[in-house]
């Protein structure tokens, strides 16, 4: 159902919009962090990776702020129906986005450990996988801001591609490890990176379900192409 016009109490609109803007900001940061972490990984940029780790603090701070605002909004404005679903979704999404930020941090932390390792094939697949995962994060936050349930469904459908990448990278790395035990160290690190990206995609899917519920009041039941987790 559309939010036809503004509230009679204008400050209510401002409160909700401020909360939604915060979620948008968090989504942007998380998306940027994953992209940066991957760039640092490929370019062996240890300095840049340290920055990504440090930047995660910002995301943590924003999550606390989003929670504070959401709780305050519920207490002071007693939101109903679509407003209530919006606020609850924002509260939940902020937690999930913070989590996605943690995956970026986790990827960045592996950069110094790989600084002197030679590049292996999987490293060329990972950035593409990251591009899809961050694209999902980007689009699902956009769907939240636009209250677009269809866009949320489309994000869910892309999760399969991320899962396929994960499977492919897993097999590639396994081959490398079997061929040459010298590769096991690096391959293990890269496997964790792939896993982090796969989790980021899953979380984007979870957010999509929250967006769908907030926008429609219905649960996105048994969405097509759902992967077992």
């Amino acid at each position, binding site marked *: 159902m559309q939010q*036809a016009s503004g509230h009679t109490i204008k400050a209510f609109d401002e409160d909700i919009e401020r909360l939604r803007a915060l979620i948008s900001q968090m989504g942007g940061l998380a998306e940027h962090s994953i992209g940066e972490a991957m760039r640092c990984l490929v370019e062996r940029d240890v300095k840049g990776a340290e920055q990504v780790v440090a930047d995660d603090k910002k995301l943590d701070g924003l999550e606390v702020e989003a929670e504070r605002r959401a709780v305050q909004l519920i207490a002071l404005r007693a939101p109903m129906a*679509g407003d209530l679903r919006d606020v609850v979704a924002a509260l939940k999404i902020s937690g999930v986005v913070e989590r996605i930020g*943690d995956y970026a941090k986790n990827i960045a932390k592996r950069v110094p450990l790989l600084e002197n390792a030679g590049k292996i094939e999987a490293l060329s697949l990972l950035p593409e996988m990251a591009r899809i995962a961050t694209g999902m994060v980007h689009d699902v936050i956009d769907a939240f801001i636009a209250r677009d349930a269809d866009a949320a469904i489309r994000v869910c459908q892309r999760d399969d591609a991320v899962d396929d990448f994960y499977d492919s990278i897993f097999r590639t790395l396994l081959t490398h490890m079997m061929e040459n035990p010298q590769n*096991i160290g690096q391959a293990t690190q890269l496997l964790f990176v792939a896993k982090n990206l796969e989790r980021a995609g899953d979380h984007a899917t979870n957010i999509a379900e929250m967006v769908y519920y907030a926008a429609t009041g219905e649960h996105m039941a048994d969405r097509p192409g759902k992967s077992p*987790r």
Partner: protein
Amino acid sequence: MDMKEKQPITPTTPVPTTSSAIAAEAKAKGPSTAEQGESQMRDGVAAHSAAEQAAPLVDVSKLENVQDASDEQIKTNREPKMSADRVGVFYGDKQALKDVSIKIYDDLVTAFIGPSGCGKSTFLRCLNRMNDTIPSARVTGRIELDGDDITSSSMDVVQLRARVGMVFQKPNPFPKSIYENVAYGPRIHGLSKSKTELDGIVETSLKRAGLWDEVKDRLQESGTALSGGQQQRLCIARAIAVNPEVILMDEPCSALDPIATAKIEELIHELRGRYAIAIVTHNMQQAARVSQRTAFFHLGELVEYGKTSEIFTNPRQQRTQDYITGRYG
């Protein structure tokens, strides 16, 4: 994917490179070890099998059934206590209510909400023919109480109002003693044969209205000497005293402070099950708190009627959404 997670890369024979990789992994985790470990657990097979072995703490599917059972049984297995079929009300030429059809069930509190002048009070007053007292008012359509048409001229209105009691916005006790306020109805309806029996009715009614403990030592004091909240509960006791089947409440708390309001709401909760209750309220939070069904009126029409939990989380009609989220007008 589960298949692959079952083959983690931990060879049985330790290889130097592997252990160094594990050490590096631990280092990479750094301060967020617990957090990452938890995530792996959640993803991993270990978490799944552990969950399967443990007895389920809460069976969600059963929970939902329990919650809905009371509601749905009433919907499917029982006749409505009252049912209105295409009810319209005219004040002179002006139509105040258009084609309202609604069913009110035993065991459920039904709340009528909507902006001022939307017809919710008008409709409530149809249910015990209070509109008869307004000379220019004319009611069309059919209203049934247990299947009998209450709008027919053969209906005994005094009897009807004993079966369908009413509590008003402003507490309106008689300027008589507390005892007499409650005893009046049973006495004129001939519900008691003796003084002892009447005493019993007064006590039971005051107890059900949650007022007994506060007034039992001063039953002969004037009802108007009580506080606003107590007066309202006295009015409820007065309505209960004649053994009604339905209780109509027209904004029963709008003249009361939050504590007195909470007491009335608690009372409504306790009375539910014994009487069918319909309540008109301007306070949407109150409708959400006390009712199981909510009807939204707007411009004389019934816009939406459904489960309270649905109306306040996921209304179907745009007008309902706009009203309850504070966007109306």
